[in-house]
């Protein structure tokens, strides 16, 4: 009897935490939320100040102003760079998803030595740090007149990300039962009809997750764009914001304006994140547990 009694108290411990524990949980939760929203607070706080406002950055501005936002929209090249970033993201997503998905279908279903070798090769490619190819890539792209061309940067970005997209798609397609393919084949469906009728409909969740990851990566990419898009009219959002923060020799840096541009640049990303949180977080959870 003794054991079952102690078992019961243990069950209670597991399922009914007391009030003190609950209060502790909320204190930790509040601390974490503050810790993770602090940079956003710092950025917004700065963006509503006048340049001359020297109040400590922890506290709210002495006098609030919207002039930084007005300037960010009117006199900077921010709007043009939004267009460039959107074009870049769309091109990278299209190339990577279409080519990566089709290749993964072939690799997952062909079987045999060649496909295994190609998949191992692909995993090795994933480990290559893209910056170690900087000299090799940049000097070749200069030679073939691919500097200041968004499509060229998009192809380069897609190529760097291709191996992981192929990797994720291949693992996903392997987990789809082969019986379905074979049944379709008996019904007379060829390779392409099998792909469009059997495989493609099942790829929806992983495609949404991959699309979001690729888009966020391309939107945020900095190193290659900073070298390949030197022309201001071709600048992406991240490059423009980075430039606003950068103090050139002798130039006076306008931190509030830079922060306002930063806030405008982050807004679409954060909005999309909140709207698509179900796909981003649940999608990540699913793709990991596969």
């Amino acid at each position, binding site marked *: 009897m003794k054991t079952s009694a102690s078992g019961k108290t243990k069950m209670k411990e597991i399922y009914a935490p007391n009030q003190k524990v609950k209060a502790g949980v909320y204190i930790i939760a509040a601390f974490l939320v503050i810790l993770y929203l602090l940079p956003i607070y710092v950025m917004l706080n700065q963006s509503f100040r006048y340049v001359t406002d020297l109040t400590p950055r922890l506290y709210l501005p002495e006098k609030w102003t919207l002039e930084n936002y007005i300037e960010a929209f009117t006199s900077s090249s921010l709007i043009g760079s939004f267009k460039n970033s959107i074009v870049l993201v769309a091109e990278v997503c299209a190339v990577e998803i279409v080519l990566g998905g089709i290749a993964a279908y072939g690799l997952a279903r062909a079987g045999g030595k060649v496909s295994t070798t190609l998949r191992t090769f692909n995993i090795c490619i994933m480990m290559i740090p893209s910056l170690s190819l900087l000299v090799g*890539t940049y000097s070749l792209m200069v030679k073939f007149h691919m500097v200041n061309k968004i499509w060229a940067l998009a192809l380069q970005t*897609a*190529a760097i990300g291709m*191996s992981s997209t192929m990797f994720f798609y291949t693992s996903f397609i392997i987990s789809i039962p082969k019986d379905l393919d074979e049944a379709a084949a008996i019904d007379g469906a060829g390779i392409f009809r099998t792909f469009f009728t059997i495989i493609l409909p099942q790829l929806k969740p992983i495609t949404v997750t991959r699309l979001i990851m690729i888009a966020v990566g391309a939107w945020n990419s900095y*190193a290659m764009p900073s*070298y390949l898009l030197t022309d201001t009219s071709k600048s992406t959002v991240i490059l423009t914001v*980075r430039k606003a923060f950068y103090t050139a020799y002798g130039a006076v840096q306008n931190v509030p304006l830079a922060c306002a541009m930063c806030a405008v640049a982050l807004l679409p990303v954060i909005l999309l994140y909140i709207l698509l949180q179900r796909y981003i977080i649940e999608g990540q959870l699913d793709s990991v547990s596969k």
Partner: protein
Amino acid sequence: MDKRKKGILLSLSIPAFLLIFIFMIVPLGNALRVSFFKWNGFSQNMRFIGLENYLSLFSDKVFWRSTANTFVYGFGSTLLQNIFGLSAALFVNKQFKGRNFVRLILYMPIMISGVIMGAIQYYIFSYDNGVLNNFLNLFGIEDIYWMKSGVGSVLIITLINSWQAMGFCMLIYLAGLQNIPKMYQEAARLDGASKWQAFFKVDIPLLMPAITTAVITNLIGGFKLYDIIVTLTNGGPNRKSLSLSYYISLLYFNDEKAGYSSAVGIALFVIIFIVAVPINRYLRSKEVEF
């Protein structure tokens, strides 16, 4: 499967591999070639010097410093992200109101570009009117020069990188925790195991696949670290907080030593392989089936 069908399936991966070939394999070959030359990166004048670039790596203090930093960024971030990530996952896995909100906030920084994050964090850690110093002043603590020394800068970069990317680990572990059948925990607890014993003896071994994914992803990510450094310290003070990735780009575009930059790139490539492959193999061998 007949040979023809297999051939068609394998040929589906040609476009994807072609793109990888053009933008990764060819540049890799080109980088390897350039690394045997003395070249400033743009002139026609290239002089073959054999292994001299590689030999001068040994006497280059900045190279060794950057390599050490890269190891700190890689291993330090991996350690911190896994500890924070696992703790956060255990925390968010508790039943309490608002846990989805906390999860949403903790994952959010991953959506924000490293360059922008570094720029904002600069105003938190800066000596002059930084938010952290403002906060410490409240308790009568004098301003601290956080990024005065190379070591301080490296530690702060590691900390910020871990803070920013922790959400990824959290999601991986959350998925892992939710996949472990509840009965294992309960059985262990009823057998008299303490909460910690049950955690270390039951949960951790079953989380091994999640740990492998998290460690390898974080390691490779940390070894490639670039964006945050650009805006947070710009590699300073005096090139003491450079990562190898950043050193490569400085050598190429600032110092105009394309050949030497290529050699450093190849070194980074080799380092990542030497580090990641055995660790991956070791962790895979620790995974258990359930």
